[in-house]
C-alpha cells in the first residue's frame, strides 16, 4: 500500500511524480475499488455541467429581467419589493431551499421525482441553484444599469429624439452588461461550488456528490483529482469570460 501510493518517497518527489503523471493523463487509482480516477471523474463531469449550465440560464433569465426592471423603476415600490426579495434570496441557504422545494413538489404535490437522474430530476436542483444566484445577479444588474442610465450618452440619445425602448435596449443595456458579464465568471464558479451542495440534497450524480463520498471514504487520490479538475474548470471559465468582456466593450482589446 505504501509503495503503491509512493509514500516511501520524500514529499517533493511524491509531488513531482504526481504532477508528471497528471501531465500524462494519469490521475492514479481510487483506494476503494482501484478504478482510474480520471475516468471516474469524467463520467460524472457532464452531470455537473448540465446542472451548472441549467442553473446559470435560469439565474440569468430571472436575475437580468428583474434587475433591469428594478433599475428602470428605481425608487418605486416595484424596485423596493424586488430588492427586498433579492436580499432574502441571497440569504437563503441552497440546501434549505432545495429541501423545501423537494418537500413541496416531490413529496406533497408529487409532480417531480425524488432523486433519479433524468431530465425531470434536473429541474429542482437547477431551480434551487438558479434562484439563489438570480438574486445576486438581480442586485448587480440593478446597480450597474442605474449607473449607466445616469450617464451622458443615454441622456444624449434620449435628447436627440430616439424612442425610449431603443435607448434602453440598444444603448443602455449593452453598456450595463459589462460589469454583469465580468461577474458571470465568478457566478459560474460560485455556482459550481453550490452544485456540490445541491447535488447532495437531490442525489444528482455529479462531481460534487462523488467528492463528498470520497471525503467520507478518505479516498485521497479521488479527492485530489476532483480538486484539480474543478480548478481547471474554474480557470477555463474565467478565461472565456475575459474574452467575452472584450467582445462587449470595444474599448478593451487584447493584442
Amino acid at each position, binding site marked *: 500500500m505504501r509503495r503503491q501510493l509512493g509514500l516511501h518517497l520524500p514529499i517533493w518527489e511524491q509531488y513531482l511524480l504526481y504532477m508528471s503523471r497528471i501531465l500524462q493523463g494519469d490521475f492514479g487509482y481510487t483506494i476503494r475499488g482501484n478504478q482510474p480516477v480520471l475516468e471516474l471523474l469524467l463520467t460524472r463531469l457532464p452531470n455537473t455541467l448540465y446542472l451548472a449550465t441549467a442553473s446559470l440560464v435560469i439565474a440569468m433569465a430571472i436575475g437580468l429581467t428583474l434587475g433591469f426592471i428594478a433599475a428602470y423603476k428605481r425608487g418605486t415600490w416595484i424596485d423596493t419589493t424586488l430588492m427586498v426579495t433579492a436580499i432574502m434570496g441571497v440569504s*437563503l441557504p441552497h440546501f434549505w431551499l432545495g429541501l423545501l422545494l423537494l418537500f413541496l413538489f416531490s*413529496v406533497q404535490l408529487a409532480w417531480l421525482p425524488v432523486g433519479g437522474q433524468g431530465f425531470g430530476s434536473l429541474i429542482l436542483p437547477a431551480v434551487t441553484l438558479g434562484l439563489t444566484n438570480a438574486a445576486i445577479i438581480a442586485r448587480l444588474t440593478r446597480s450597474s444599469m442605474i449607473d449607466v442610465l445616469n450617464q451622458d450618452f443615454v441622456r444624449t440619445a434620449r435628447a436627440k429624439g430616439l424612442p425610449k425602448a431603443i435607448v434602453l435596449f440598444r444603448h443602455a443595456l449593452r453598456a450595463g452588461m459589462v460589469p454583469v458579464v465580468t461577474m458571470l465568471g465568478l457566478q459560474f464558479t460560485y455556482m459550481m461550488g453550490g452544485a456540490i451542495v445541491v447535488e447532495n440534497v437531490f442525489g444528482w450524480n455529479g462531481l460534487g456528490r462523488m467528492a463528498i463520498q470520497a471525503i467520507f471514504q478518505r479516498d485521497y487520490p479521488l479527492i485530489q483529482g476532483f480538486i484539480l479538475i474543478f480548478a481547471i474548470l474554474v480557470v477555463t471559465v474565467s478565461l472565456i469570460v475575459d474574452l467575452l468582456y472584450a467582445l462587449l466593450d470595444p474599448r478593451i482589446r487584447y493584442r
Partner: protein
Amino acid sequence: MHSPAAIETTSAPRSRRTWLSRWPFVAAVFANRGAAIGFVLVVVLVVAALLAPYIAPFEPTRMGAGPRLAAPSLAHPFGTDEFGRDILSRVIHGSRLTLQIGLIAVGISLTAGLLIGLTAAYAGGWLERILMRGVDVIFSFTETLIALAAVAVLGPSLTNAMIAVGIAAIPFYARVTYGVTLVERNKPYFEAAVAAGAAHARLLFIHLLPNIIPPLIVVATLGVSTAVLAAAALSFLGLGAQPPSPEWGAMLASGREFISRAPWLMVFPGLAIALSVLAFNLLGDGIREALDPRQRKA
C-alpha cells in the same frame, strides 16, 4: 476614526432620536430601515446565544423530552425530533454554535488576510508580488473548494469546519486590505508622515491601520453571513458539526430523512440559518451604504 464620507451623512437623516446625533455614523446606519432590522435580528441572535440555558425549555440533547416526531404544539412550539428532543430548545442552543462559527471563522480570515494584504501593499517589491500572486492563485480555486479540501485534510468536525471556512476566505480579505492600503498610502497624510520620519511600526499601526479598519468592518460583517452559510453547508453535508450537536445545518441533515412525516424538522433550523444570514447581510449593506452615501455599489 471616521472617513469624510461618513461625516457628510450626518445632516441627511433628521433622526428624532437625538442622542444618536452624538454618533453620526451610527445614526446614518440606523436611518436605513434594512440595517435597523438586521441589527435587531443580530441582537436577538446574541441574546438567544447568551441566555440559551435560561430561555430554552429543555436540554438540547435530552431525549424523550416529548413524544417522538411530535408536530408543533404548545408544549413543543417547534415540534420534536426522532429522539423526542425539543426542536425549539435545540434551535436556541444552535445560536451559540452559529455565532461562534461566524466569529471564529471571520476572525481567522480577517487576521490572516489583514496581515498578508497590509504587508504586501506596504512592503512592495518582490514580497508584494509573491504574496499577491499567491493570493490570486488561491482565489481562483473558489471558497467552497478550499473549504472542502481543508476539511478533507483535517477530517470532519465542527472545529475543523470553522478553520476550513476561515482559511477559504483569507484571499478575499487579503485582496480587500491590499486594495484599501494602496489607496491610503498614496494619500498626502501618509506621505507627510513618511517625510516626518515616522518609523515603520508607527506608519503601519498609527497611520495606516485606523484608516483601513472601517472598510474592513463592512467586509467582515458581510463575511459573517458567508461564513455562517458555508459552515452550515459543511455541517449539512456531514463534514462539520456531528449529530448530537444542535448545529442547524446538522439538524437539517438528520431531519431530511423525515421530510414527508415530519417537515417541521427541516423548517425551523433552516429558517434560523436564513434569518441569521439575512441579519448580517442587512447590517453589512447598511454599514456600507452609510460609509458610501452615493450608494453606487448597492
